[in-house]
């Protein structure tokens, strides 16, 4: 959708590519700070990127 690599997104928000991958794979729940950074990078609201599940928040396809 955004034609963006994990590496590019990781560099833009100051994390490792592995962290982006871990979030996508639902292995790691990002902090609120990182979640906001990701959503702001895409220029959307946080709830458009992340879904809060009672068990684990998951990332939507962006």
């Amino acid at each position, binding site marked *: 959708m955004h034609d963006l690599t994990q590496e590019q997104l990781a560099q833009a928000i*100051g994390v490792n590519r*592995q*962290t982006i*991958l*871990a979030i996508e794979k639902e*292995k790691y729940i990002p902090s609120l700070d*990182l979640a906001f950074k990701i959503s702001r990078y895409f220029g959307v609201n946080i709830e458009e990127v992340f879904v809060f599940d009672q068990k684990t928040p998951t990332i939507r396809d962006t």
Partner: protein
Amino acid sequence: MKKNTFYLIFGCIALALLFLFWYSVELHTPLLIEIAFILGIVLVYLAKRSVTDSIEDERDVKITEQATIRTMQIFWVVFCAFSIGAVMEIFRVPTFPRQPMGTRPPDILGPRMIGYIQLGLLCLMVFLYVGFRIYYAKKYGEFETDEE
């Protein structure tokens, strides 16, 4: 500094410490290796801070944090349990105060052996930490592979 340069420096410091340990034994001066060890660790920390091509993000911090907490939770219990036993051994509980030499039975654990065992426990802590680090790295997706 590049990450690989850091590993190279780390290896050199480890080798230097090994040499100094041997030299310290030769000279019968434990102070030499003790000071060298502290300086070596300070150098490693300084070198690590100057690495530029590696980002430590919040996931890395979490992995380190979790591994450290779990290691400490196990280590302090084991270490304290052994140390309490060792102190009792040194004070020869329950026949405290110590009886004069010749009238008391031989020590099971001498102070030297206690030191060796404590050093061994410290080494075990390193292995424990590495184990926990691998476990939490796996848990938080360190070894996941995926291409976008």
